Protein backbone atom coordinates (compact mmCIF):
# COMPACT_ATOMS: atom_id res chain seq x y z
CA UNK A 1 0.00 0.00 0.00
CA UNK A 2 1.27 3.46 -0.82
CA UNK A 3 0.00 6.73 0.60
CA UNK A 4 0.03 8.82 -2.52
CA UNK A 5 -2.35 11.76 -2.77
CA UNK A 6 -4.28 11.80 -6.00
CA UNK A 7 -5.91 14.94 -7.41
CA UNK A 8 -9.24 14.34 -9.10
CA UNK A 9 -11.40 16.95 -10.78
CA UNK A 10 -14.97 15.76 -10.35
CA UNK A 11 -16.20 17.37 -13.54
CA UNK A 12 -13.50 15.54 -15.53
CA UNK A 13 -15.04 12.29 -14.32
CA UNK A 14 -18.73 13.02 -14.74
CA UNK A 15 -20.65 15.46 -16.88
CA UNK A 16 -23.24 16.18 -14.22
CA UNK A 17 -24.26 15.62 -10.62
CA UNK A 18 -27.96 14.85 -10.96
CA UNK A 19 -28.34 11.13 -11.62
CA UNK A 20 -27.39 7.65 -10.45
CA UNK A 21 -25.22 6.88 -13.53
CA UNK A 22 -23.27 10.10 -13.02
CA UNK A 23 -22.71 9.15 -9.38
CA UNK A 24 -21.66 5.65 -10.42
CA UNK A 25 -19.02 7.11 -12.77
CA UNK A 26 -17.48 8.99 -9.84
CA UNK A 27 -17.75 5.94 -7.58
CA UNK A 28 -15.70 3.80 -10.00
CA UNK A 29 -12.85 6.30 -10.08
CA UNK A 30 -12.83 6.96 -6.33
CA UNK A 31 -13.02 3.25 -5.54
CA UNK A 32 -10.00 2.48 -7.71
CA UNK A 33 -7.85 4.98 -5.82
CA UNK A 34 -9.12 3.92 -2.39
CA UNK A 35 -8.25 0.33 -3.24
CA UNK A 36 -4.75 1.56 -4.12
CA UNK A 37 -4.54 3.05 -0.62
CA UNK A 38 -4.36 6.58 -1.98
CA UNK A 39 -5.69 9.73 -0.42
CA UNK A 40 -7.94 11.71 -2.74
CA UNK A 41 -8.03 15.47 -3.12
CA UNK A 42 -11.32 16.01 -4.93
CA UNK A 43 -11.77 19.27 -6.80
CA UNK A 44 -15.36 20.47 -7.06
CA UNK A 45 -14.46 23.28 -9.45
CA UNK A 46 -17.49 24.25 -11.56
CA UNK A 47 -19.48 21.33 -10.18
CA UNK A 48 -23.27 21.50 -10.28
CA UNK A 49 -25.33 21.05 -7.10
CA UNK A 50 -25.35 17.40 -6.02
CA UNK A 51 -28.72 15.69 -5.64
CA UNK A 52 -29.44 12.59 -3.57
CA UNK A 53 -29.35 10.10 -6.47
CA UNK A 54 -25.86 11.28 -7.39
CA UNK A 55 -24.70 11.20 -3.76
CA UNK A 56 -26.18 7.73 -3.16
CA UNK A 57 -24.47 6.22 -6.19
CA UNK A 58 -21.11 7.84 -5.53
CA UNK A 59 -20.34 8.49 -1.87
CA UNK A 60 -23.12 6.25 -0.55
CA UNK A 61 -21.80 3.25 -2.46
CA UNK A 62 -18.26 4.13 -1.41
CA UNK A 63 -19.26 4.19 2.26
CA UNK A 64 -21.08 0.85 1.86
CA UNK A 65 -17.89 -0.65 0.53
CA UNK A 66 -15.18 1.01 2.61
CA UNK A 67 -16.99 2.34 5.67
CA UNK A 68 -17.63 5.91 6.74
CA UNK A 69 -14.40 6.31 8.72
CA UNK A 70 -12.24 5.31 5.78
CA UNK A 71 -14.11 7.53 3.31
CA UNK A 72 -14.07 10.55 5.60
CA UNK A 73 -10.36 10.20 6.29
CA UNK A 74 -9.33 9.48 2.70
CA UNK A 75 -11.11 12.24 0.82
CA UNK A 76 -10.70 15.98 1.09
CA UNK A 77 -12.11 18.79 -1.03
CA UNK A 78 -10.46 21.61 -2.94
CA UNK A 79 -12.01 24.37 -5.09
CA UNK A 80 -15.31 24.00 -3.30
CA UNK A 81 -18.00 26.33 -2.05
CA UNK A 82 -19.13 26.37 1.55
CA UNK A 83 -22.51 24.91 0.58
CA UNK A 84 -20.93 22.05 -1.42
CA UNK A 85 -18.82 21.10 1.60
CA UNK A 86 -21.87 21.40 3.80
CA UNK A 87 -23.96 19.19 1.46
CA UNK A 88 -21.36 16.43 1.58
CA UNK A 89 -20.86 16.72 5.32
CA UNK A 90 -24.66 16.58 5.81
CA UNK A 91 -24.83 13.49 3.60
CA UNK A 92 -22.14 11.72 5.64
CA UNK A 93 -23.91 12.71 8.85
CA UNK A 94 -27.27 11.48 7.52
CA UNK A 95 -25.67 8.23 6.44
CA UNK A 96 -24.23 7.77 9.92
CA UNK A 97 -27.57 8.62 11.54
CA UNK A 98 -29.95 6.61 9.36
CA UNK A 99 -28.32 4.09 7.08
CA UNK A 100 -26.03 2.24 9.41
CA UNK A 101 -28.58 1.96 12.22
Amino acid at each position, binding site marked *: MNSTTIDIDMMDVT*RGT*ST*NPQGAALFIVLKKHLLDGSRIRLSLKDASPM*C*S*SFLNSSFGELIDEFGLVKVRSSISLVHYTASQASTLKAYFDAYERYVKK
Partner: protein
Amino acid sequence: MHLLLDSTLSEVEWIDFIERNRVKNVGVPDELQIEIRQSFIEPYQIVSLACLIEEFDQVDVPIVFSRNHCSADMYLNHVRFFEYWTQGFDRHAFITPGKRTTFALWKISQSRISIYADESKKYFENLVFTGKDLSPLHIALSETFNNIFDHAESGVDGFVLYQYYPRVHRLNTAICDFGVGIPSKIKTIWSDRLRTPVNDQDALRAAFINRMSTKTTPQNRGFGLSNLLGNIRNIKGELIVYSNAAGIRFVENNVYYRSLPAALGGTLVKFSFDPSNLPKKEEEIDNEEYFF
Protein backbone atom coordinates in the same frame (compact mmCIF):
# COMPACT_ATOMS: atom_id res chain seq x y z
CA MET B 1 -63.67 14.71 -28.66
CA HIS B 2 -63.76 18.37 -27.72
CA LEU B 3 -62.17 19.77 -24.56
CA LEU B 4 -63.19 23.28 -23.66
CA LEU B 5 -61.14 25.01 -21.00
CA ASP B 6 -63.19 28.06 -20.27
CA SER B 7 -63.53 28.50 -16.58
CA THR B 8 -61.34 29.17 -13.63
CA LEU B 9 -61.29 25.80 -11.99
CA SER B 10 -59.70 25.32 -8.61
CA GLU B 11 -56.55 23.18 -8.52
CA VAL B 12 -58.48 20.18 -7.29
CA GLU B 13 -61.20 20.65 -9.92
CA TRP B 14 -58.58 21.00 -12.64
CA ILE B 15 -56.89 17.76 -11.64
CA ASP B 16 -60.28 16.06 -11.61
CA PHE B 17 -60.97 17.46 -15.09
CA ILE B 18 -57.65 16.12 -16.41
CA GLU B 19 -58.17 12.71 -14.82
CA ARG B 20 -61.72 12.35 -16.14
CA ASN B 21 -60.52 13.02 -19.67
CA ARG B 22 -57.66 10.52 -19.73
CA VAL B 23 -57.55 7.87 -22.47
CA LYS B 24 -58.32 5.18 -19.89
CA ASN B 25 -61.60 6.97 -19.05
CA VAL B 26 -62.79 8.26 -22.43
CA GLY B 27 -61.30 5.73 -24.82
CA VAL B 28 -59.61 6.57 -28.12
CA PRO B 29 -61.49 9.26 -30.08
CA ASP B 30 -60.96 10.04 -33.77
CA GLU B 31 -59.56 13.41 -32.85
CA LEU B 32 -58.80 15.49 -29.76
CA GLN B 33 -59.84 19.09 -30.20
CA ILE B 34 -58.75 21.51 -27.51
CA GLU B 35 -60.13 24.97 -27.09
CA ILE B 36 -58.73 27.23 -24.40
CA ARG B 37 -60.75 30.28 -23.41
CA GLN B 38 -59.16 31.03 -20.07
CA SER B 39 -57.82 34.44 -19.25
CA PHE B 40 -54.94 32.97 -17.29
CA ILE B 41 -53.21 29.62 -17.33
CA GLU B 42 -50.75 28.42 -14.74
CA PRO B 43 -47.71 26.13 -15.12
CA TYR B 44 -49.44 23.25 -13.28
CA GLN B 45 -52.33 23.40 -15.76
CA ILE B 46 -49.96 23.46 -18.73
CA VAL B 47 -47.84 20.48 -17.63
CA SER B 48 -50.85 18.33 -16.75
CA LEU B 49 -52.56 19.26 -20.02
CA ALA B 50 -49.33 18.37 -21.84
CA CYS B 51 -49.33 14.92 -20.18
CA LEU B 52 -52.96 14.45 -21.21
CA ILE B 53 -52.27 15.41 -24.83
CA GLU B 54 -49.14 13.23 -24.86
CA GLU B 55 -51.24 10.24 -23.85
CA PHE B 56 -53.62 10.78 -26.78
CA ASP B 57 -50.69 11.39 -29.13
CA GLN B 58 -49.20 8.04 -28.10
CA VAL B 59 -52.31 6.26 -29.36
CA ASP B 60 -52.16 8.24 -32.62
CA VAL B 61 -55.11 10.51 -31.94
CA PRO B 62 -54.70 13.70 -34.02
CA ILE B 63 -54.45 16.79 -31.79
CA VAL B 64 -56.21 19.92 -33.01
CA PHE B 65 -56.16 23.27 -31.25
CA SER B 66 -59.03 25.70 -31.78
CA ARG B 67 -57.24 29.00 -31.48
CA ASN B 68 -58.63 32.31 -30.27
CA HIS B 69 -57.34 35.55 -28.83
CA CYS B 70 -57.71 34.94 -25.12
CA SER B 71 -54.72 35.65 -22.87
CA ALA B 72 -54.06 31.99 -22.11
CA ASP B 73 -53.97 31.21 -25.84
CA MET B 74 -51.44 33.99 -26.35
CA TYR B 75 -49.29 32.70 -23.51
CA LEU B 76 -49.37 29.14 -24.84
CA ASN B 77 -48.45 30.44 -28.26
CA HIS B 78 -45.54 32.24 -26.66
CA VAL B 79 -44.21 29.01 -25.07
CA ARG B 80 -44.84 27.31 -28.46
CA PHE B 81 -47.27 24.88 -26.84
CA PHE B 82 -49.34 24.52 -30.02
CA GLU B 83 -46.30 23.27 -31.95
CA TYR B 84 -45.36 20.51 -29.49
CA TRP B 85 -47.45 17.76 -31.09
CA THR B 86 -46.75 18.66 -34.69
CA GLN B 87 -44.77 16.16 -36.71
CA GLY B 88 -41.02 16.40 -36.23
CA PHE B 89 -41.15 18.63 -33.14
CA ASP B 90 -38.61 17.48 -30.54
CA ARG B 91 -40.40 17.80 -27.20
CA HIS B 92 -37.22 16.67 -25.41
CA ALA B 93 -35.34 19.75 -26.65
CA PHE B 94 -35.34 22.97 -24.64
CA ILE B 95 -37.12 25.61 -26.66
CA THR B 96 -36.36 29.09 -25.39
CA PRO B 97 -39.65 30.97 -25.44
CA GLY B 98 -38.06 34.35 -26.13
CA LYS B 99 -39.36 35.91 -22.95
CA ARG B 100 -36.90 35.95 -20.12
CA THR B 101 -39.36 35.15 -17.35
CA THR B 102 -40.23 31.72 -18.76
CA PHE B 103 -38.06 28.67 -19.21
CA ALA B 104 -38.94 26.05 -21.80
CA LEU B 105 -41.79 23.60 -21.44
CA TRP B 106 -39.89 20.33 -21.56
CA LYS B 107 -40.83 16.70 -21.95
CA ILE B 108 -38.61 15.17 -19.30
CA SER B 109 -35.95 12.86 -20.65
CA GLN B 110 -33.90 10.68 -18.32
CA SER B 111 -30.70 11.16 -20.29
CA ARG B 112 -31.00 14.96 -20.19
CA ILE B 113 -31.92 15.52 -16.54
CA SER B 114 -28.65 17.15 -15.57
CA ILE B 115 -28.43 19.23 -18.75
CA TYR B 116 -31.89 20.67 -18.15
CA ALA B 117 -31.20 21.35 -14.47
CA ASP B 118 -27.83 22.96 -15.32
CA GLU B 119 -29.23 25.08 -18.16
CA SER B 120 -32.23 26.34 -16.23
CA LYS B 121 -30.01 27.26 -13.27
CA LYS B 122 -27.64 29.19 -15.55
CA TYR B 123 -30.53 30.81 -17.42
CA PHE B 124 -32.11 32.32 -14.33
CA GLU B 125 -28.77 33.18 -12.67
CA ASN B 126 -27.54 35.02 -15.75
CA LEU B 127 -30.69 36.67 -17.03
CA VAL B 128 -33.20 37.10 -14.24
CA PHE B 129 -31.77 36.75 -10.75
CA THR B 130 -28.21 37.98 -11.13
CA GLY B 131 -26.09 37.52 -8.03
CA LYS B 132 -28.35 34.74 -6.71
CA ASP B 133 -27.52 31.05 -6.38
CA LEU B 134 -30.22 28.90 -8.00
CA SER B 135 -28.86 25.65 -6.54
CA PRO B 136 -32.06 24.97 -4.56
CA LEU B 137 -34.03 25.02 -7.81
CA HIS B 138 -31.45 22.74 -9.49
CA ILE B 139 -31.68 20.20 -6.68
CA ALA B 140 -35.49 20.36 -6.49
CA LEU B 141 -35.73 19.69 -10.23
CA SER B 142 -33.21 16.84 -10.16
CA GLU B 143 -34.92 15.16 -7.21
CA THR B 144 -38.35 15.35 -8.84
CA PHE B 145 -37.11 14.13 -12.23
CA ASN B 146 -35.24 11.21 -10.66
CA ASN B 147 -38.33 10.31 -8.70
CA ILE B 148 -40.26 9.97 -11.95
CA PHE B 149 -37.75 7.67 -13.60
CA ASP B 150 -36.89 5.67 -10.48
CA HIS B 151 -40.44 5.07 -9.28
CA ALA B 152 -43.30 6.43 -11.36
CA GLU B 153 -43.36 4.11 -14.39
CA SER B 154 -45.04 6.95 -16.27
CA GLY B 155 -46.13 6.13 -19.78
CA VAL B 156 -45.74 9.75 -20.86
CA ASP B 157 -42.53 10.42 -18.84
CA GLY B 158 -43.56 13.88 -17.68
CA PHE B 159 -43.51 17.61 -18.38
CA VAL B 160 -42.02 20.58 -16.54
CA LEU B 161 -42.44 24.32 -16.88
CA TYR B 162 -41.61 27.29 -14.78
CA GLN B 163 -42.60 30.85 -14.89
CA TYR B 164 -41.41 33.89 -12.98
CA TYR B 165 -44.08 36.43 -12.01
CA PRO B 166 -42.16 39.68 -11.38
CA ARG B 167 -45.15 41.59 -9.98
CA VAL B 168 -45.66 39.14 -7.15
CA HIS B 169 -42.01 38.04 -6.94
CA ARG B 170 -42.72 34.32 -7.34
CA LEU B 171 -41.01 31.68 -9.41
CA ASN B 172 -43.58 28.92 -9.96
CA THR B 173 -42.56 25.47 -11.11
CA ALA B 174 -44.79 22.55 -12.03
CA ILE B 175 -43.90 18.98 -12.93
CA CYS B 176 -46.43 16.31 -13.86
CA ASP B 177 -46.28 12.61 -14.67
CA PHE B 178 -48.93 9.95 -15.29
CA GLY B 179 -47.21 7.20 -13.33
CA VAL B 180 -48.42 4.92 -10.55
CA GLY B 181 -48.37 7.70 -7.95
CA ILE B 182 -46.35 8.10 -4.76
CA PRO B 183 -48.95 6.71 -2.28
CA SER B 184 -49.44 3.64 -4.42
CA LYS B 185 -45.70 2.96 -4.41
CA ILE B 186 -45.38 3.56 -0.67
CA LYS B 187 -48.36 1.34 0.12
CA THR B 188 -46.82 -1.48 -1.89
CA ILE B 189 -43.80 -1.58 0.39
CA TRP B 190 -45.91 -1.12 3.51
CA SER B 191 -48.31 -3.91 2.58
CA ASP B 192 -45.77 -6.49 3.71
CA ARG B 193 -45.43 -4.92 7.15
CA LEU B 194 -48.87 -3.60 8.04
CA ARG B 195 -52.07 -5.52 8.49
CA THR B 196 -54.39 -2.48 8.43
CA PRO B 197 -54.96 -0.46 5.26
CA VAL B 198 -53.20 2.89 4.93
CA ASN B 199 -54.84 5.85 3.25
CA ASP B 200 -53.21 7.86 0.45
CA GLN B 201 -52.69 10.94 2.63
CA ASP B 202 -50.68 9.06 5.24
CA ALA B 203 -48.67 7.34 2.54
CA LEU B 204 -47.95 10.62 0.73
CA ARG B 205 -46.89 12.33 3.98
CA ALA B 206 -44.57 9.43 4.77
CA ALA B 207 -42.79 9.82 1.44
CA PHE B 208 -41.30 13.09 2.68
CA ILE B 209 -39.70 11.56 5.75
CA ASN B 210 -35.99 10.90 5.54
CA ARG B 211 -35.13 7.26 4.86
CA MET B 212 -38.56 6.38 3.43
CA SER B 213 -37.32 4.36 0.50
CA THR B 214 -39.26 2.09 -1.82
CA LYS B 215 -35.92 0.54 -2.85
CA THR B 216 -37.09 0.60 -6.46
CA THR B 217 -33.44 0.84 -7.43
CA PRO B 218 -30.59 -0.52 -5.28
CA GLN B 219 -29.19 2.99 -4.86
CA ASN B 220 -32.39 4.37 -3.27
CA ARG B 221 -31.81 5.43 0.30
CA GLY B 222 -34.94 7.48 0.86
CA PHE B 223 -33.39 10.94 0.80
CA GLY B 224 -34.94 12.22 -2.45
CA LEU B 225 -38.31 13.73 -1.54
CA SER B 226 -37.13 14.87 1.88
CA ASN B 227 -34.25 16.62 0.11
CA LEU B 228 -36.73 18.26 -2.28
CA LEU B 229 -38.79 19.50 0.67
CA GLY B 230 -35.69 20.62 2.61
CA ASN B 231 -34.45 22.71 -0.32
CA ILE B 232 -37.79 24.41 -0.79
CA ARG B 233 -38.14 25.07 2.94
CA ASN B 234 -34.64 26.56 3.11
CA ILE B 235 -35.72 29.31 0.73
CA LYS B 236 -39.09 29.80 2.47
CA GLY B 237 -40.93 28.33 -0.49
CA GLU B 238 -44.15 26.41 -0.81
CA LEU B 239 -44.39 22.82 -2.03
CA ILE B 240 -47.64 21.19 -3.11
CA VAL B 241 -47.91 17.59 -4.29
CA TYR B 242 -50.99 15.80 -5.60
CA SER B 243 -50.73 12.08 -6.11
CA ASN B 244 -53.42 9.41 -6.28
CA ALA B 245 -56.26 10.50 -3.97
CA ALA B 246 -54.12 12.76 -1.79
CA GLY B 247 -52.80 16.28 -1.83
CA ILE B 248 -50.27 17.78 0.55
CA ARG B 249 -49.09 21.35 0.96
CA PHE B 250 -45.98 22.36 2.84
CA VAL B 251 -45.71 26.05 3.63
CA GLU B 252 -43.46 27.52 6.27
CA ASN B 253 -43.48 24.79 8.91
CA ASN B 254 -47.08 23.82 8.38
CA VAL B 255 -48.51 20.85 6.54
CA TYR B 256 -51.99 20.88 5.03
CA TYR B 257 -53.86 17.98 3.46
CA ARG B 258 -56.33 17.88 0.60
CA SER B 259 -58.36 15.05 -0.86
CA LEU B 260 -59.00 14.58 -4.55
CA PRO B 261 -62.48 13.55 -5.70
CA ALA B 262 -61.01 11.14 -8.23
CA ALA B 263 -57.60 9.66 -7.67
CA LEU B 264 -54.97 11.13 -9.99
CA GLY B 265 -53.15 8.40 -11.85
CA GLY B 266 -49.81 10.12 -11.48
CA THR B 267 -48.18 12.94 -9.59
CA LEU B 268 -48.32 16.71 -9.89
CA VAL B 269 -45.59 18.63 -8.08
CA LYS B 270 -45.76 22.40 -7.67
CA PHE B 271 -43.26 24.56 -5.92
CA SER B 272 -42.90 28.29 -5.73
CA PHE B 273 -40.70 30.76 -3.91
CA ASP B 274 -39.71 34.39 -3.74
CA PRO B 275 -36.29 34.62 -5.46
CA SER B 276 -35.15 37.24 -2.95
CA ASN B 277 -34.96 34.34 -0.47
CA LEU B 278 -32.36 32.56 -2.61
CA PRO B 279 -28.83 32.58 -1.22
CA LYS B 280 -26.24 34.84 -2.79
CA LYS B 281 -23.95 33.30 -5.36
CA GLU B 282 -20.97 31.85 -3.51
CA GLU B 283 -17.28 32.34 -4.14
CA GLU B 284 -15.25 29.19 -4.59
CA ILE B 285 -12.73 28.55 -1.81
CA ASP B 286 -9.42 28.12 -3.61
CA ASN B 287 -6.87 28.37 -0.86
CA GLU B 288 -8.08 25.93 1.75
CA GLU B 289 -8.45 22.16 1.75
CA TYR B 290 -11.60 20.81 3.40
CA PHE B 291 -11.31 17.71 5.60
CA PHE B 292 -14.37 15.85 6.85
